[in-house]
């Protein structure tokens, strides 16, 4: 049963082979069984069973939509009314959101059944899910390895078949990197395609929500629900949402795929290099044409990202002051003490580090040298992609330089950790969509590759990923513990 996809469950629900309640119960058991992965912060058993019951009633009345009764989980970064929304921080350990994020509302109105809130790096800052107030998440392929981050709980849960699908967010690779480490499909849509309202902000100009699933087909189904204009988000894109499942079966004949030769040199794990080479052959057999391109400013990506993302985060996280909600230090001596202790006691060290970087680059005397310079570099990076898309439809790139690393391997060296984001972060700065799909193994660990498209090219990315998955089986492989 665990190897069915979301699309399979759709059919089973439609044909009434299974009820929503049965499905919810089954996955709630899965969650309990795999609790040691620590992929969940909150399990919503009561609420989920009520929603499932309601879904079954709707179905009985003939009022079910395509996603009615489908179980899933939200990353604990999305505000859920009446349910704890912690962002994996001690700061929000007691925060019961008084409102729903727009996509929480959207998925609920589609009839989907939310089973819980997944673990993550605190405030989405991290690439290993080791920065959670609720403890690290284990990679289901190897419990000694990290699942990636920041959407590590969602990735681990989907990979271990604890749930059929989950939401994630991606600021610099936080959907794609854990998807690669855990061997699942993860789509980071175009910036603004999915509303950010109620999604706790890390870096506002980079953050984007997206689906994390077993297959590209499932990702398309979820994106259909998640995408769309939101008047409550000024940066949300006011363009029509196509049916993302409509073009999945288009032929790849003549599709031009860009390859950046320098991405495949030193620094890339040979197993990933080989897996992608084999995938290229598959894609060529499907009719795709490979074109060599260059992103000349790509070496600016990591520093640019850490300046911009940290600057935005230092300001976004100023609201956590112990006054209106969240953690408040005991017996503050005065106002300054209230601020300093509430924030210092409740933020983890990675969050503090980013706040420090961001405060520094915005401070008087450094703003022009760091922040403005980074914003200029951001334009160079974005323009590189626009030039590339004159010659190619999509770009194929590794998602990560290495497979999942060992827990604690990089946690003492932030620079080393930041460098592992090399392939993912420029995409966020350009606001582009990209999808990670599994493409092979390095030993017992899955590895992924990503397709990057131009703005609003999600249909094309899903089409390519789906076609690849029609003729390969990497995405069907599941870790042993799920069997």
């Amino acid at each position, binding site marked *: 049963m665990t190897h069915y996809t979301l699309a399979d469950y759709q059919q089973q629900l439609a044909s009434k082979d299974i009820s929503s309640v049965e499905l919810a119960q089954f996955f709630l058991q899965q969650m309990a069984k795999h609790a040691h992965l620590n992929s969940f912060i909150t399990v919503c058993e009561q609420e989920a069973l009520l929603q499932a019951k309601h879904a079954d009633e709707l179905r009985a009345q003939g009022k079910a939509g395509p996603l009615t009764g489908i179980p899933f989980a939200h990353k604990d970064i999305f505000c859920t009314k009446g349910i704890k929304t912690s962002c994996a921080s001690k700061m929000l350990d*007691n925060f*019961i959101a*008084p409102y729903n994020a727009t996509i929480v509302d959207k998925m609920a109105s589609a009839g989907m059944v939310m089973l819980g809130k997944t673990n993550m790096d605190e405030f989405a800052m991290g690439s290993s899910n080791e920065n959670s107030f609720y403890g690290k998440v284990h990679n289901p392929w190897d419990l000694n390895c990290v699942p990636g981050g920041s959407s590590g709980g969602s990735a681990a849960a989907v990979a271990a078949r604890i749930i059929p699908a989950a939401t994630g967010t991606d600021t610099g690779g936080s959907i794609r990197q854990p998807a690669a480490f855990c061997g699942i499909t993860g789509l980071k849509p175009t*910036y*603004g395609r999915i509303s950010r309202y109620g999604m706790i902000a890390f870096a506002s*100009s980079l953050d984007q929500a997206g689906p994390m699933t077993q297959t590209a087909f499932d990702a398309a189904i979820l994106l259909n629900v998640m995408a769309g204009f939101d*008047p409550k988000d*000024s*940066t949300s894109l*006011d363009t029509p949402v196509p049916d993302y499942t409509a073009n999945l079966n288009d032929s790849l004949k003549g599709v031009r795929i860009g390859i950046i030769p320098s991405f495949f040199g030193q620094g890339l794990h040979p197993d990933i290099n080989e897996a992608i080479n084999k995938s290229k052959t598959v894609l060529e057999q499907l009719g795709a044409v490979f074109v060599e391109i260059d992103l000349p400013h790509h*070496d*600016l990506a*990591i*520093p*640019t990202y*850490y300046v911009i993302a940290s600057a935005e985060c*230092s300001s976004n996280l*100023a609201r956590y*002051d112990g*006054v*209106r*909600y969240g953690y*408040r230090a005991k017996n*503050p001596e005065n*106002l*300054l*003490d*209230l*601020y*300093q*202790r509430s*924030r*210092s006691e409740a*933020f983890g*060290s990675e969050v*503090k*580090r980013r*706040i*420090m*970087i961001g*405060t*520094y680059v915005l*401070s008087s005397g450094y703003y022009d040298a*760091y922040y*403005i*310079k*980074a*914003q*200029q*570099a*951001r*334009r*160079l990076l*974005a323009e590189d992609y626009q030039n590339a898309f004159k010659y190619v439809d999509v770009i194929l790139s590794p998602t990560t330089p290495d497979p999942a690393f060992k827990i604690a391997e990089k946690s003492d060296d*932030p*620079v080393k950790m*930041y460098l592992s984001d090399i392939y993912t972060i420029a995409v966020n700065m350009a*606001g*582009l969509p990209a999808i990670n799909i599994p493409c092979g193994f390095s030993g017992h660990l899955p590895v992924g590759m990503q397709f990057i498209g131009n*703005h609003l090219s999600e249909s094309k990315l899903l089409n390519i990923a789906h076609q690849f998955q029609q003729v390969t089986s990497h995405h069907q492989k599941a870790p042993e513990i799920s069997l």
Partner: protein
Amino acid sequence: MSITNDEVKKIAHLARLALSTDETNAFASQLENIFKLVTVIQNTHTDGIRPMSHPFDAKQRLRKDMVTESNERDIMQKIAPATELGLYLVPQVIE
């Protein structure tokens, strides 16, 4: 470039973070390493390049001037650490 402990303290104060001596020392060396990474952008010619704040050149959308929110004080203050008579309480603010 090097970042001194005093600079770290100044930044921490701006960010309202209280750092222990160990944290201050650690941050000083970590920030220094991180800013070494950043020198690559500083060595890039960016004259005349328009800084990019958003992924798109879109323009701000406007909402109509209408009251759409009602009084939700009780709901909002249920999650507040300290309130009295509908006010949020903080240690005395001296002006």
